[in-house]
């Protein structure tokens, strides 16, 4: 019964469909990464966001206590 279901079920096309969707969107993401992200200055600006915040690099808080 189960074997029969899984051997013949048309639902088993769904993993393939999912795979197609995955590949299509992943390809789009790669295209964006390599063609869209060409503005080096822009990328550097975003990448530096963690370093652009408030204060210290030496273990001493420079912000004031509130």
């Amino acid at each position: 019964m189960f074997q029969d279901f899984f051997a013949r079920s048309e639902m088993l096309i769904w993993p393939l469909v999912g795979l197609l969707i995955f590949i299509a969107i992943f390809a789009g993401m790669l295209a964006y990464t390599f063609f869209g992200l060409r503005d080096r200055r822009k990328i550097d600006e975003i990448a530096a966001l963690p370093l652009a915040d408030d204060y210290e690099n030496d273990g001493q808080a420079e912000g004031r206590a509130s």
Partner: protein
Amino acid sequence: MKSVTYDDGIVRAFTGVTVLWGIVGFLVGVIVAAQLSFWQANFGVEWLSFGRLRPLHTNAAIFAFVGNGMFAGIYYSTQRLLKVRMANDMLSWAHFWGYQLIIVLAAVTLPLGLTQSKEYAELIWPIDLLVVAVWVIFAANFFWTVAIRNEKNLYVALWFYIATIVTIAVLYIVNNLQLPTSLTHGYSIFGGVQDALVQWWYGHNAVAFFLTTPILGLMYYFMPKAAERPVYSYRLSVVHFWSLVFIYIWAGPHHLLYTALPDWAQTLGMIFSVMLWAPSWGGMLNGLLTLRGAWDKLRTDPVIKFFVVAVTFYGMSTFEGPLLSIKSVNALGHYTDWIIGHVHGGTLGWNGFMAFGMIYWLWPRLYGTKLYSVRLAETHFWLATVGILMYVVSMWVSGVSQGLFWRALDAEGFLRYPDFVEGLTNSRAMYQARLAGGVLYLGSAFLLVWNVIMTARRGQPVNVTVQVPVRAPAPDSAGAWALMTSAPMLLITAIIVLGIWFGVAGPMVSPVVLALLIVVCVAGIISYGLQKQRWGHWYGLVERHGFVFTILVLLAILVGGVVEIVPTLVVTEKVPAAITDEMIAEDPALAETAQWIQQPYSPLELAGRDVYIAEGCYVCHSQMVRPFRHEVLRYGEYSRLEETIFDHPFQWGSKRTGLDLARLGGKYDNLWHYLHLMDPRSTSPASIMPAYTHFKDQTLDPTVTVARMGALARLGVPYADEDLRLAVQRYESQAQLVADDLAAKNVTVDPASKMVAVIAYLQRLGRGPQPLAPAPVTADAGGAPPADVAPSAPGAEGE
């Protein structure tokens, strides 16, 4: 410019409890490790037994230690990356106290045996509801903060946080869907193979989206901070994020290789697990290469030391995971200590070291001072490193040895080592090495505690105030709809619709649809891919729109889950609750299914099963014989999908510290089970199983079981009205049978005791319905059929 004061009080609170719960989680881990080395460490106390404490250990380590550390890092980094204070302080503190309440409730209920028995989802339904409420509070506060931000771009760390929030919500709700039977008990709405697939879809992705994506977000924030330089490649981080989010969700079935899960789902899980290698190692390299030009800090800065080892463990774990997902490797490693070594490398090595590094970096800044003692932090690092290496290496050795031991055949093709416990005895030295490693790791964490306390005493709590640019017009409210209906979004929608059409179309139409799909993809690439500025501009807009971004993440994680789970859910509609001779006459293929299809448990067996679940027996005993010669020789016929279709929840297990129990029924008599449960050493001298003497003294109320049978009937288990009406009578008569049998062997047991119920359940495993009342005395007693066999559903026995 305007002034913004960050809420660092909430960060201090979450960081503090991270340290506290870390100690608790590691301590319980050391206790359970001791119990596996010395069974006496169970102390004969039921709520200290391994089966109850092990879920407490995993929950404490994952949700209390890593969870609180994750929240600390998210609250700290989110405010700074968005240049805004958390949207609502009350929500932040409701999140904090609600989460701590959940942890306390878990710490009380799990040792009491109140559990669902689903790994990493053991909490009972009222606590599950609280988890959902607290998660919604956290999500609302987070997305509200995103909406009012003063920074237009969402840094990649925030993407990982969004993926965590969205995916954990979906996973947790679906896997914990259950039908309550009382305030402290409920049955999963899924049964058997469905439950197994949903559980490991959750279980694997709890690792992915609770222990990996948020920690990667922390890595992308705190490693650049510690190294004082930006992430090595922002482009790589984009690819890392989307490929990880897409692929991870498919990999759950690798926990069920060679089980009764349909083969196509196993293969799919294996393929996607192997695919995970690429994004995982891409992320690891991105983290390590962030230190380019800053490697000299490795000598002097304990924070960098912790981060480097953490990311190295991430690389090691994400190499080992796909390796273990390859079916031939999994055949050796599954159910062994290798898996235990793997998960500890991830949790204590990757997550733990990231948390420690983050705390050493964060804590002095939260108190406006320097770290109390760098030397103590260095000592913590080295002790913890040696500890986790001892742990992981000993489990590798033990696990591979167990796998080889179990499968060894002699020249005639029979088991070379038929005594399972012999293998356990061989692992004892490795178990002791593991215990020593755990003690080192725990001991080193006390150095962190001391450093944290003394650093806090040296400084004062600081809430940082900064000047930030006045925010541009609200990015989330402007243009979100236009973005949702933009050409790239329509292209993605078209791909999904055509993909679905391809799935439902007949054999004549589907090739045409596939061709159309390819044409659309190519047209999309030509239209947008070649006009590079458009692609970049469009995705740049998506990055700034939290709502649209979240929708895309949701789509990414739902695709994999839906295509794996839906076919398995639908299959039950094809399975009749009972197969009659008439049905077999119409369709002879049903004869095979009828031979294996599960018959519901009797009331007494069901009560015994609930005790089995409450005691956490599944943490050491599987109920799934894989289709290997050595397993069939050791345990009996391999397990079929049909055999556990009505098990709510499934009990296939994931580890064999003890034997598989799928075919246990009838192998030993009731007296053997009684003696084994009272003192496992009396029947198996080298056993490390705790004694369950309380089974003899504690009694069960049959009316509770009747209510539970009613709940199971609502979930599709074929209990007829008559089964429910006669349940108490059948319960008592079958219990009397077991008690009488023991009495005949000079053992007096209360028929209402847990002992009798558990023995009845164990005797049922792998077999069909058992006698519920004494057979009537006839001239030929040996050939007499049982007077009453319940439930009344027809069908042959399972063996």
